[in-house]
């Protein structure tokens, strides 16, 4: 590559990007989430999805699930960068364990009449989505599943009068008896 006039060396690397789901166990204290998010924005990493909630209130532990994309070297960096933060206990790459379950919940509002309404209900049934609100001209469906399933459902609702979607982002957990 022809290097532009610069004090920096410009790298011309094209490793393919991968998507990984990371589970991060942190001390639930002020600023902990800001630290994690600041790391991603400051170092230019991607956040595809991020969910946080306290999971063990006695121990003040929160679990953060992050879906991120990057080259294998960047993904490795992200894990190390997270791991060295003072309030972080553990970082587990759920994608590498190959034994994890990922779920998202979405609420999907659809507005329509006649055939569209019937079709929407039929599809919801096929996807095991529940009706959690209904008016004569609308439904709100609740659906859980992995990201692909939810994307697929939303795509199908689009021509049937999709109004809006609210999603929780991905939560992940390992299969089998062991904890993280």
């Amino acid at each position: 590559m022809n290097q532009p006039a610069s004090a920096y060396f410009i790298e011309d690397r094209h490793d393919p990007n991968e998507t990984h789901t990371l589970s991060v166990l942190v001390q639930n204290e002020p600023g902990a989430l800001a630290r994690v998010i600041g790391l991603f924005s400051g170092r230019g990493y991607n956040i595809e999805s991020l969910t946080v909630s306290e999971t063990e209130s006695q121990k003040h532990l929160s679990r953060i699930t992050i879906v991120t994309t990057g080259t294998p070297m960047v993904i490795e960096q992200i894990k190390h960068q997270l791991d060295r933060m003072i309030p972080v206990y553990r970082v587990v790459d759920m994608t590498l364990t190959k034994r994890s379950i990922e779920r998202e919940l979405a609420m999907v509002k659809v507005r329509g009449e006649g055939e569209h309404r019937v079709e929407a209900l039929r599809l919801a049934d096929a996807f095991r989505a529940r009706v959690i609100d209904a008016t004569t001209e609308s439904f709100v469906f609740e659906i859980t599943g992995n990201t692909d399933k939810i994307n697929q459902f939303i795509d199908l609702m689009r021509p049937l009068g999709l109004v809006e979607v609210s999603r929780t982002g991905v939560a992940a957990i390992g299969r089998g008896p062991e904890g993280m």
Partner: protein
Amino acid sequence: MSDKSHDPNQMTGAAMIVRALIDHGVTDIFGYPGGAVLPIYDEIFQQSEVQHILVRHEQGAGHAAEGYARSTGKPGVALVTSGPGATNMVTPLTDALMDSIPLVCISGQVPTHLIGNDAFQECDTVGITRPCTKHNWLVRDVNDLAKVLHEAFYVATSGRPGPVLVDVPKDVQFATGTYHPPRKSDVHRSYAPRVKGDATQIRKAVALLANAKRPVIYSGGGVINSGPEATKLLRELVEVTGFPITSTLMGLGAYPASGKNWLGMLGMHGTYEANMTMHDCDVMLCVGARFDDRITGRVDAFSPGSKKIHIDIDPSSINKNIRVDVPIIGDCGNILGDILQVFKAEAKKPDVKAWWQQIAQWRARNSLYYRKSNDVILPQHAIQSLFEATRGKDTYITTEVGQHQMWAAQFFGFEEPHRWMTSGGLGTMGYGLPAAVGVQVAHPDSLVIDIAGDASVQMTMQEMSTAVQYELPIKIFILNNQYMGMVRQWQQLLHGNRLSHSYSEALPDFVKLAEAYGGVGIQVHKPADLDGAIQEMISVKRPVLFDCRVAALENCFPMIPSGKAHNEMLLPEQANDEATAKAFAGGKALV
């Protein structure tokens, strides 16, 4: 109920801060007062165990604390007020983060009930400093203060050292609570830096080293941070193996410059022999360095044929820029000790005679060559003269940032660690003068010299006043080329010689300036007068501004041009216009 008024651990937050400093062995702090830290200043006034050095700008306090830390191996402490006091600390905190310097900054904050109200001199200090500290805390309850302060010292000094900040609202400083001395449970359970290296990895490393034909040791600031034991072990490893050793800017002094296996510094302005040895080696042992972009040159052409061993206490340094074959996570000293033990028990000294012959040929290129003159002082010559004049003396060197910094690294020989204080990672102009103040506070009887540039030195010149006040006889040795030389060099090489704003217009008269501060000014123009003037500078026991007028257009070589590999260095004798133009040929996009 016990009578709390007689409990010696009952005290105000402000008193706890001073008490914690004492409990952590702090004898000197650097600071600047203001509304939000007045209770702490009141406590400082009423005791004599901790000496407070009043700087002239908070940035100066931060860099002074850095200089103090780097020259002693102990944490440096700075105390600043809220708002502008805290924002002025951002540069030194970032500097310390990049160079892994243990720093504890205590900042005042507006009272808790006003936080978030845009109160007078309020700023989101923990928010602003979150990305430029290893960790930071806002203390909302006086009963948390002791724990946080102890943890702050632990975090700053353990693992990969770095800066921390504790933000203390004014009402917490006034409030009374319970203090406790440092204890283990003060630290987050989630923070446990790894010290000991993995035994299997250590065996793999030794196997590589024992069979190396063309080895090199590349050491960095981590060895110095690890402490005197690591330096000792590094020297022993070089002795036992007979391997050549080079080091980063941050690592100078861990191996003595007079040592027979020393190749000089590596990287962008490193020696030809160091960079060629790196490029052609078959086994590289990287100890406490991080494959920074000033070191590697073009990444995909970096030492293409070598097996790489990387020792670092910070796992995030591994495989960040360069993929390595044998990573070993842990403390340099600890791991060097283990490597030596296994090596001595199981390996014999590899035969590297042929490799040294090759290195001798590279060395013969004399890559630090420069043309001396009888009419004008060459900056390289000035550094060499300074080095000769200080040989055998108890000397500490700080620098600013620019060509003079690189020349200092190239031409001043460091025999011991902790003697060289320079802003490597952040490249902060204005670092050297306040850093020298900090070094001199820590070593009152030593010779402390800031090798400075005419532009850099003006960034924190006000600390001359601090030096005069505390009778700190620092020597500011200005290589005055009347240019931002390093900027000009890049403009000459990369921007068609259009010298946009890199000329030092309207320079002050440094001699008069020194006198105005109550210091001593010395100016020298002629090579023949240089040695005498340096002797005068050294013998004066007051702060000195030494205005050394040097050849204005001298540039810093050798150099790895951008986008080039270690074996494509531009040597001084080749650096004519045509060769330079060719070496830097490329597009003109600005990045």
